[in-house]
């Protein structure tokens, strides 16, 4: 069984986005998988089943009765110090929400593919970020891939980031429902031996911080009182929560280092926390996530041909938020239009634009953030739509007048 796996040689496979998730999990030699089927994630768990049952992946596969149990299983497994993987979508992610907090609070390096989709009602199974962004503050790191190669590479990188002792956090790797999950693209895969060299070895004795070992018995997750300097100094709940924040801060440098190291070893770079496209002289940069970010490059090229100084920024890592990178970019860039497939109901904008506004609010250059909702529930976003948004942003940069109304692109009249 092991022999067969190590035989994996460098090759290019034309596969779906979902297959890229499964292949990455196989290359990472995950030891425990737990999953529950949900459209459009289903073919990931099917492919992983094939790998395991064909003896190509030596993993325990727990086919559970709900997503809540998916995450409970992975938490139980990860407490044992093993590498774990799952994937889900939309309603499934919402259903396991309680356990997302648990995984992050327990500081377990679980990696999960999210094939993002709209939240019901009405039923919707197409690309939309409402599901993922509702898990914004659970403590998980959140990555968005913009093409199939990036799905594969990011998933592998993620194990190295999550299992870093300065991080020890779980992470999502997101891909758009159907737009990415069910389309085919070529994906370059290296020799298994190179991935084995790249990823850390799973410790024989469990993670250094958490383990379930009868020879070293510890009780996990005891009740803790609020505490206070003069009340009971043994109450650490608040401090544990703060350490999750610290881990997110630590993760930023780790993400940058791992992206560089990956580039050095495999010759592929998708950006670190962000990827900049023609931003050096740009006055306007379109911020987007997922497949929209890849398409934004075409919109930028078209605009450049007409002489506009515009660029694009792919938000590859949403959590931890690339605060420092955006603050640096804002020294030159005047307007950041943000096009996104989510709604921050009751506020003006999608969820990411609200966060970007918050971190740029006190910037000395006072850049504009232009929130644009687009492609909700998988509605097609055309290059022309992105160009239109860029032109509106260019106009804002020229007139220095901020548009206050929310732009809702592609909505029926």
């Amino acid at each position: 069984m092991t022999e067969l796996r190590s035989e994996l040689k460098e090759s290019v496979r034309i596969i779906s986005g979902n297959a890229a998730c499964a292949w990455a999990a196989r290359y990472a030699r995950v030891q425990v998988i737990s999953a529950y089927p949900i459209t459009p994630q289903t073919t990931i768990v099917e492919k992983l089943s094939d790998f395991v049952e064909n003896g190509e992946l030596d993993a325990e596969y727990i086919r559970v009765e709900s997503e809540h149990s998916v995450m409970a299983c992975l938490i139980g497994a990860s407490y044992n110090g093993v590498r774990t993987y799952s994937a889900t979508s939309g309603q499934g992610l919402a259903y396991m929400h309680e356990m997302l907090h648990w995984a992050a609070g327990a500081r377990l390096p679980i990696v999960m593919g999210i094939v993002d989709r709209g939240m019901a009602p009405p039923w919707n199974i197409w690309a939309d970020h409402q599901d993922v962004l509702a898990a914004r503050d659970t403590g998980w790191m959140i990555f968005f891939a913009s093409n199939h190669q990036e799905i594969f590479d990011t998933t592998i990188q993620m194990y190295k980031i999550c299992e870093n002792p300065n991080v020890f956090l779980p992470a999502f790797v997101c891909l758009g429902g159907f737009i990415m999950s069910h389309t085919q693209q070529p994906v370059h895969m290296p020799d298994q031996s190179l991935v084995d060299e790249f990823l850390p070895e799973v410790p024989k004795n469990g993670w250094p911080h958490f383990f379930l070992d009868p020879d070293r018995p510890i009780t996990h997750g005891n009740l803790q009182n609020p505490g206070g300097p003069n009340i009971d100094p043994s109450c650490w709940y608040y401090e544990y929560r703060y350490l999750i924040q610290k881990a997110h801060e630590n993760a930023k440098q780790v993400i940058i280092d791992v992206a560089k190291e990956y580039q050095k070893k495999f010759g592929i770079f998708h950006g670190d926390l962000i990827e900049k496209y023609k931003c050096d002289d740009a006055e306007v940069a379109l911020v987007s996530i997922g497949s929209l970010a890849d398409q934004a490059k075409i919109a930028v090229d078209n605009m450049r041909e007409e002489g506009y100084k515009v660029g694009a920024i792919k938000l590859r890592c949403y959590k931890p938020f690339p605060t420092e990178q955006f603050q640096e970019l804002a020294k030159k860039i005047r307007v950041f239009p943000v096009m996104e497939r989510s709604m921050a109901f009751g506020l003006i904008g999608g969820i990411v634009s609200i966060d970007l506004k918050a971190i740029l609010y006190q910037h000395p250059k006072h850049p504009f953030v232009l929130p644009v909702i687009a492609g909700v529930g998988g509605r097609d976003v055309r290059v022309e739509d992105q160009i239109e948004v860029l032109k509106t942003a260019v106009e804002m940069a020229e007139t220095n007048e901020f548009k206050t109304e929310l732009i809702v692109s592609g909505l029926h009249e």
Partner: protein
Amino acid sequence: MVKLKELIKDPVAGEEYFLKGNSSCAGCGGELAFRWIMKALGKRTIVVAPASCFNVTIGLYPRAGPAIPYLNMAFAAGAATCSGIVAGLAARKKLDPSMEDITVLCFAGDGGTIDIGIQGLSGAAERGTDFIYICYDNEAYMNTGTQRSGGTPFGAWTTTTPTGKKEHKKNVPMIMAAHGIPYVATACAGYPLDLYQKVLKAKKIKGTKYIHVLAPCAPGWRFPTEQAIEVGRKAVQTGMWILYEIEDGKMTLSGPSKNLLDKKNRKPIEEYIKLQGRFRNISPEDVKVLQKWVDRQWEDLKIRLACQS
């Protein structure tokens, strides 16, 4: 049946894995049950405790009563977490053979089993996860202050059934038996040796094992703390709680319940309910309803036992 005299000489059973100074209430049936369960399971055990009194009785951080690896867990997640631990151990074993022979135990309350946890429990049983699931049933949400659960008996007062519960207790051991798992048993904290014996048996069986332990709760059931054993025994002697085992589908009555198939051997349920404040306001008509329900449980058992032989 193991004799107490022999047992106290056994160094393994003499060990305590739930230590003195824990935060359980005086006269806690659940704590008594847990101590005896751990005596049977021994040191190489990993315990998962979904939300229940047993997240609190272990003691506030950094104090901890369990002398074994103990994982506090989310309410609905007890059984699934055990599936994950078992899978994780299987993966670990490939690298580290010393991870052999570890028992995984889910120790959950009636709320975490009968109500919010039943989906995960059913799933784990259907998958045949190799673990022991023990429900300590104190017949209400005692950790939050006595709210009714699916395990609360008809007529009992709780803070959410102030005039008495209108529905009967859910029969989860039989639901678990319907999963076709190799071992199902009931026990009572009032008969710790019977419980000990059943846990020892479960430990040796591969697959999903389910044990449902009635655990009298002095503050919730409203009886003096020194009467936990007596109340538990009365529950069995009146037939309110039936002790049995189902091994590979074959049921046998155990302990004092063996002789109670004939109604005239069972004490009237009044002897049980009069000991407890939670039945203080039950009407004579409702006592009849409850007695009728108890008798029906026994009639159902009679049919099952007759069909087996």
